[in-house]
């Protein structure tokens, strides 16, 4: 598909050489990737009929397209964190393959902060390409922009990241940093760079809705190469005179945008996505080797011993009763969030751990889901309703069976579902239906997973309206840390305690 900013000029400008005295046309190409999240190997996403992605295949296509015309290879953020392949080396493997692919620039994404600032600084030092963050104040290793000369054109690339970054990671990961409004930042650098560049590109990690607004409000941006919303923009979006592109996620596509520029104006463009289907493409050998080396590295890290358990940790009966592994995991959540109590679904635990040394792999097998810790302020009545839901699927061994910390409760199996919970105590005192409690859980349940609609609905119901006799203090959300998976917090628990021997029983009791 071809669409032009100045459509009437298209055909004549594309195919004709400039006459003497006319301004010269320059042709250039942007190749772009966003939200890679460490998905290095081909994978089959939910609902897909075939494997997609594979960074070595993407690199192979990029290598083929690059020599065809003057090209910049850009990354629009969230490259380093996500998949275990990347997380186990804290993004080091990603930087190495990006170096090998000779990226020209990258903008920092919100998830780049998830390993903490010290790790990020190491990754930035290893990168042989500029990493941009014009609206981030307090991290000098991030550059606001870079000006690249490509095919006779001076191309300014200004990088901005979502100002929501502080609420999408743990506060200490962004301590001392400020995230300025991208609009103001871009406006400022467009002005500063007016004489230094012919073409202005914003490398943006703030999502398509925000990119559209940016294009509307700030004139003078030629191209926005975006990320964050994981949008598959098959044909470039045009807002005013700004072209917006984004290339989906997880290396499932390479974005290609070809431009012809005359007198500092884009007079023609053609943008499309090359979907990465390993069955049809050839992998880049150098990148393949890097991927394979870090697969081995990840495997080695998974074999590392993180601690020892002096008893078998029961992951087999988490859908039927309280188990010591359920207790341990719930304890970790409660401690992480500084909560009064914790409640998780037994179904979030998928395997037990035998007595003896515990390797990271055992923890990852036991807790395979990418869950993180959330804490909500709930009334006692809501806590009771959540427990009722938890024991409402006993007959089918449903994954909703609760594993808890900070409370004890009894239930009657023979009673009707919805009326099974009997005594609930917190710190030795009966649960106060009108009291309020800080409850740690995982993001899955907070979004209503396993049918925990009482938790999801709590978010619909602000604190002030939680009930006339149970006014909650402050907002419902008290804690959220999407930057760390629960399994990694449990690994930290083992590392800190060295040996664990959680007793079984005492929190959840079946009564007649």
């Amino acid at each position, binding site marked *: 598909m071809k669409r032009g900013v100045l459509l009437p000029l298209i055909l004549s400008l594309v195919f004709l050489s400039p006459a003497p005295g006319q301004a010269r046309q320059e042709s250039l190409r942007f190749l772009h990737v966003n*939200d890679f*999240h460490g998905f290095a190997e081909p994978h089959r*996403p*939910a*609902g897909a009929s075939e494997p997609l992605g594979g960074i070595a295949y993407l690199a192979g296509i990029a290598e083929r397209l690059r020599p065809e015309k003057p090209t910049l290879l850009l990354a629009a953020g969230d490259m380093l964190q*996500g998949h275990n392949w990347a997380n186990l080396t804290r993004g080091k493997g990603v930087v190495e393959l990006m170096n090998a692919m000779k990226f020209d620039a990258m903008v920092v994404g*919100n998830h780049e902060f998830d390993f903490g600032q010290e790790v990020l600084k190491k990754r930035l030092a290893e990168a042989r390409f500029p990493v941009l963050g014009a609206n981030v104040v307090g991290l000098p290793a991030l550059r606001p922009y870079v000006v690249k000369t490509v095919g006779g054109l001076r191309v300014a690339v200004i990088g901005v990241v*979502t100002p*929501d970054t502080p*609420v*999408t*990671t743990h506060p200490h990961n962004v301590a001392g940093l400020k995230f300025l409004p991208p609009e103001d930042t871009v406006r400022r650098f467009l002005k500063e760079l007016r004489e230094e560049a012919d073409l202005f590109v914003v490398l943006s990690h703030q*999502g*398509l*809705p*925000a990119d559209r607004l940016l294009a509307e409000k700030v004139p003078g941006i030629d191209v926005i190469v975006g990320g*964050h*919303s*994981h*949008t*598959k*923009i*098959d044909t470039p*979006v045009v807002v005013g005179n700004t072209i917006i592109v984004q290339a*989906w*996620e*997880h290396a*499932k596509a390479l974005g290609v945008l070809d431009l012809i520029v005359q007198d500092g104006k884009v007079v023609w463009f053609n943008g499309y996505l090359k979907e990465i289907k390993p069955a049809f493409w050839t992998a880049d050998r150098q990148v393949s080797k890097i991927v394979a080396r870090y697969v081995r590295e990840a495997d080695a890290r998974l074999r590392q011993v993180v601690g020892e358990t002096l008893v078998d940790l029961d992951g087999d009966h988490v859908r039927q009763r309280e188990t010591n592994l359920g207790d341990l995991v719930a304890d970790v959540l409660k401690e992480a969030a500084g909560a009064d109590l914790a409640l998780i679904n037994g179904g979030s635990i998928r395997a037990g751990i035998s007595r003896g040394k515990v390797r990271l792999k055992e923890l990852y097998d036991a807790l395979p889901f990418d869950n993180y810790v*959330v804490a909500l302020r709930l009334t006692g009545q809501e806590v009771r309703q959540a427990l009722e839901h938890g024991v409402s699927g006993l007959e089918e061994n449903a994954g909703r069976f609760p594993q808890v910390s900070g409370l004890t409760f009894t239930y009657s199996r023979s009673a009707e579902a919805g009326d099974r919970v009997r005594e609930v105590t917190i710190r030795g005192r009966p649960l106060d239906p009108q009291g309020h409690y800080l409850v740690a859980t995982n*993001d*899955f349940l*907070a*979004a*209503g*997973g396993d049918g925990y609609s009482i938790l*999801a609905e709590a*978010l*619909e119901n602000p604190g002030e309206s939680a009930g006339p006799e149970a006014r909650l203090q402050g907002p419902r*959300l008290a804690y*959220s840390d*999407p930057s760390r998976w629960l399994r990694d917090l449990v690994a930290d628990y083992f590392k800190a305690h060295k040996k664990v021997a959680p007793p079984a029983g005492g929190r959840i009791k079946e009564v007649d």
Partner: protein
Amino acid sequence: MRVYVNDRPLELLPGMRVEHALLKAGLLAAIQGGQKVYDEWGHEVGLDGALTVDLKLYVR
């Protein structure tokens, strides 16, 4: 933060993703069944995509 799935308003937490919105809307299973998620402009979005205030998503 408020988002909309098939025009149904839903309240979600900052940092949550498209996947959480579908979970809350009870539509995650539809993706396993081959349906896809689109934004209000008709672009497909990934399950790990970030949510923004008043984002409109459609499953079909």
